[in-house]
C-alpha cells in the first residue's frame, strides 16, 4: 500500500502573526519532497505540527489516509514519524549507543541493559553512516558534525515511515553530506516519505523529487524537481508583488561620511572581516543561518571578545570591553532572539524601554518616575505599540509589539544612537508590522543614524538596504550595491565556499 502524508487545510496563528494560512500539501512515499520558502514562510511551523510540538488551529494531518492529531512529540514518534530539528536534543554526558537507542534501550532479563546487543546494533548503523566513531564514545566529546549525524541516526534507527530533515547539512562537511544523501536514497527505495527543508539550491536539485513552495504561510505551488530550474524556484519563493511592501518606503538618500570602519576583525567565529558604515546608510548583511553575521555584530557591540583587528568609530579607534561601553558611545543592538536576549519578560514595557538610560533618568538619588513615564509614553506613541498602559508586562505582548519595544528602547529621546544594529528585526512578525518597521529603519537613516540590517529574508535585505554584504562561515563572500544586487546573485554568494 502506498504511503501518503497529507496536510489538510492546516492553519496556525501566533499572537500577531498568521504562521500558516489554510495550507494543504500531499506527499507520497518513496519520494523526497523538499519544503522551500523564505524564513517565516511557515516551513518550521509545518514541521512542528507534524512532530506534535504545535497543535494546528484548523485542519489536520492524515497519514496513509488516517487522520492523526498529535498533542505531544512522543505521540508522533510512536506514530512512526521522526523530525530532525536543527537544535539537537542529545544527552552529552552519555554514550553514542545510548543516544541512538534513547527510547528503545534493549532489555535482557529482569531489566538489565543488553549492552552487547546495543553495541552490535549501534555499530551496524555507524558502519552504514561510515562514521569514525565507536558506540561507547561520549557524545559530548564528538565534533558538531558527528553529533548532527547521531541525531540523524536516531531517526534512521527508528525506521519511521515519515522522516523530516530541517536544514540537516548546515554543520556537515561534504564527505558526511555525501553519506547522508546515499542513506536518503536507501530510505527512498524502501518507500519512506521524506521531507527535506534546506536553503541550499544545489542539494535541492541533487536529491529531491518534488518541491513544495511556501510563502507568508500559504502554499504557492509545487514543482517536479526535474521540471524546474533555480531561477523559476527563486521567483516562486520570493516573487512577491514587491510593489506594495517595499515601494511605499520613503527612502533616505542623504548618505554622509564614514561613521564606522571595521578592519581585519578576527574573533572565535569570524576570520578577517572588514567593512565600513556611513552616516544615514542602511547596510544589509545577507547569508545563511550560521554565516557568522550575528557573531560579527556581537563582537562590534562588545558582547563577545575580539581576538584581533580594530574598530574605528567616527575615525577614533575604540575597543569595547562590554555592551555598556558600546551603548555609551552610541551603538545599539537589537538582538536576534527577542525573548531570551532582548527583553526582560517579567518586567513592564516602561522598565524595558528605560533600561539603557537609567543613569540619565535618576535625579540626584532617586529615579525620576515622571520623566521615565513620559519617555515610555513617547516611545509607545512613536512606534504605535498596541498597549493600554506602559505598565503591561512585555510577556503579554505580540511578537511585533515586543520588537517595537526594543526599537523604542534604542531610539528613545534620551538615547543619542549613532549606529543601530538590527538582527532579524522582522522574524515571526506579520507582513503589516514588517512594512512599518522598514519605514522606521529609513526614518532613522534620514536622521543620520547608520543602520546595519541582518536578515535571512532575501527580499527584505535587497529592498531595504542601500548596500549589501553577503557572508558565509565567518567570511565576507560578496559586496553589492542595491542596484547591482539580485536574488540569484545573493543566494549564489551565500552558498559559495
Amino acid at each position, binding site marked *: 500500500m502506498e504511503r501518503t502524508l497529507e496536510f489538510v487545510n492546516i492553519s496556525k496563528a*501566533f*499572537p500577531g502573526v498568521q504562521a500558516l494560512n489554510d495550507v494543504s500539501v500531499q506527499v507520497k512515499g518513496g519520494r523526497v519532497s523538499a519544503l522551500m520558502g523564505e524564513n517565516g514562510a511557515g516551513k518550521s511551523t509545518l514541521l512542528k505540527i507534524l512532530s506534535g*510540538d*504545535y*497543535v494546528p488551529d484548523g485542519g489536520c494531518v492524515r497519514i496513509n489516509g488516517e487522520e492523526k492529531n498529535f498533542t505531544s512529540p512522543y505521540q508522533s514518534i510512536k506514530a512512526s514519524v521522526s523530525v530532525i530539528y536543527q537544535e539537537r536534543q542529545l544527552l552529552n554526558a552519555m554514550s553514542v549507543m545510548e543516544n541512538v537507542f534513547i527510547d528503545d534501550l534493549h532489555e535482557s532479563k529482569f531489566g538489565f541493559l543488553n549492552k552487547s546487543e546495543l553495541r552490535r546494533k549501534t555499530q551496524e548503523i555507524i558502519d552504514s553512516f561510515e562514521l569514525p566513531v565507536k558506540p561507547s564514545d561520549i557524545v559530548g566529546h564528538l565534533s558538531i558534525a558527528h553529533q548532527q549525524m547521531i541525531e540523524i541516526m536516531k531517526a534512521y534507527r527508528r525506521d519511521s515511515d515519515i522522516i523530516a530533515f530541517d536544514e540537516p547539512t548546515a554543520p556537515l562537511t561534504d564527505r558526511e553530506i555525501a553519506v547522508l544523501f546515499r542513506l536518503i536514497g536507501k530510505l527512498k527505495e524502501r518507500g519512506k516519505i521524506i521531507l527535506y527543508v534546506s536553503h541550499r539550491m544545489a542539494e535541492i536539485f541533487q536529491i529531491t523529487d518534488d518541491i513544495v513552495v511556501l510563502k507568508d504561510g500559504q502554499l504557492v505551488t509545487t514543482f517536479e524537481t526535474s521540471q524546474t530550474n533555480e531561477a523559476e524556484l527563486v521567483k516562486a519563493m520570493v516573487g512577491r508583488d514587491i510593489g506594495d511592501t517595499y515601494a511605499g518606503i520613503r527612502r533616505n538618500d542623504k548618505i554622509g561620511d564614514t561613521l564606522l570602519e571595521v578592519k581585519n576583525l578576527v574573533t572565535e567565529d569570524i576570520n578577517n572581516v572588514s567593512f565600513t558604515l556611513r552616516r544615514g546608510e542602511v547596510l544589509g548583511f545577507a547569508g545563511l543561518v550560521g554565516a557568522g553575521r550575528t557573531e560579527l555584530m556581537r563582537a562590534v*557591540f562588545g*558582547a563577545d571578545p575580539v581576538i584581533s583587528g580594530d574598530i574605528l568609530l567616527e575615525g577614533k579607534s575604540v575597543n569595547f570591553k*562590554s*555592551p*555598556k561601553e558600546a*551603548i*555609551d558611545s552610541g551603538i545599539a*543592538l537589537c*538582538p536576534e532572539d527577542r525573548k*531570551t*536576549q*532582548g*527583553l*526582560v*519578560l*517579567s*518586567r513592564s514595557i516602561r*522598565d524595558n524601554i*528605560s*533600561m*539603557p538610560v*537609567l*543613569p540619565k*533618568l*535618576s535625579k540626584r*538619588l*532617586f*529615579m525620576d518616575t515622571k520623566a521615565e513615564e513620559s519617555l515610555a509614553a513617547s516611545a509607545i506613541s512613536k512606534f504605535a505599540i498596541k498597549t493600554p*498602559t506602559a505598565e503591561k*508586562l512585555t*510577556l*503579554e505582548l505580540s511578537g511585533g509589539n515586543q520588537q517595537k519595544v526594543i526599537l523604542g*528602547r534604542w531610539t528613545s529621546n534620551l538615547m543619542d544612537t549613532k549606529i543601530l544594529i538590527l538582527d532579524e528585526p522582522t522574524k515571526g512578525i506579520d507582513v503589516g508590522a514588517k512594512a512599518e518597521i522598514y519605514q522606521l529603519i529609513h526614518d532613522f537613516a534620514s536622521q543620520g543614524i547608520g543602520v546595519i540590517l541582518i536578515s535571512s529574508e532575501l527580499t527584505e535585505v535587497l529592498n531595504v538596504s542601500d548596500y549589501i554584504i553577503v557572508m558565509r562561515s565567518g567570511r565576507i563572500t560578496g559586496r553589492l550595491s542595491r542596484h547591482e544586487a539580485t536574488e540569484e546573485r545573493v543566494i549564489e554568494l551565500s552558498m559559495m565556499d
Partner: protein
Amino acid sequence: MDIAGIAKKFIKGKTFSLLCMLMLIIVFFWYFSPNHSFLSVTNIVIILNSMVLFILFAVAVSMLIISGEVDLSPGFIGTAAGATMAALLEGGTVPWFVAVIICLLMGIGFGLINAVLVNKFRIQSFIATLAVGTFLARGFSFIVSGGRAIPVRDPVISWLGTARIGDVVPVTVLISLAIILVYGTILSKTKFGRGVYLCGGNREAARLAGLNPKKLSYLLFANSGMLGALAGILFVARIRSGNLDGTNAFSFPAVTAVIFGGISFGGGSGKMLGCFLGLLIINAFNNGLTIMRVSPFWQDVASGLLLLLALTLDYISTRRANRASIPKSARRLKQEG
C-alpha cells in the same frame, strides 16, 4: 489610572494577602492570649525587638534572591563578626568604631569569597554560600575567639544593645527599621534597585542593554556579608558577649521570611514591604505561640508548616498569573522545564 483600577490591582497583589494573614494571626492570638496581652504595647515592642536581627538578614538575602541567587551564609558571618568584635574590644585598647569598621570589612570579605565562588567558578550559590558559612565563617569565629565567649564591656556598645528611646523602643529596633526603609527605597526608587530586578529577570538581556550583572552580583554578595556582620555586631551588643552559637541558625528563617513576603525564587519580582510583612507574620506567630505556652518543639513543626504554606500560596498565585497571559504551549514548557 483611576482609583478603582489601582484598588483592584492592589487587592490582587501580594501585599493585600499578607495583610489579611497578619490580621488573621493578630485577631487569633489577641483572642486566645491571656487577658488579651498579645496587643499590649510591651508585647508589640517585644515582637519588633525579636525581628531586629531577622530584618537585617532578610534584607541581605532578599536582594540576592530577587537577582536570582541565594545566600545561606549571613547567619554564620554574623557570628564571626560578633566573635571578632568581642575579641577586638577585650583589651579595651581598640576604640569601638574601629572594631565596628573592621567587622563590617570582614563581613564584606566573606561576601566577596561567596561572589568569587559563584561568578568565577560557576558554583551554585546555595551550596557555595553554605560551604563558606558552615565551615569558613564558623571556623573563623572559633579561631578568633579561642573557643570561648569573650564578654564585651565597652560602654558605647552596651548602650547600643540595651538603650531604649523614650524607655520603650530599643535603639536596635530603630536601626533595623531604618535599614529596611533605606534598602526598600533603594530597591524601588533607585537605578541600582531597578538593576537588581532587571538582572534577576533576564541576566543576558540586561547585559546587552548596558547593565553589568557580574558587578551587581559582587556588590550584592558583599552587601549581604556586610549586613550579616552588622547583625552580628547588634547581637553582641544585645547580649554583651561573643557567643559562639550566635546568629548561625538565623539564615534559614530569613530565607523563609523572604519567600513568605512574595519574593519569588528565580528573581525578577517581589518588594521589600512584602519581606517586612512576612517577617512580621512569622515573628508575631512565634510570639503568639510562646504566649500561649506552646512547647518549642511544636514551634519547630509550626515554622516548617508555615514555610510550606508560603510556598503553596506562591505556587497558587504564580499558576493563576500564568493562566492569564502566556500561550498554552509556552506555559507547558515553562512548567516542565
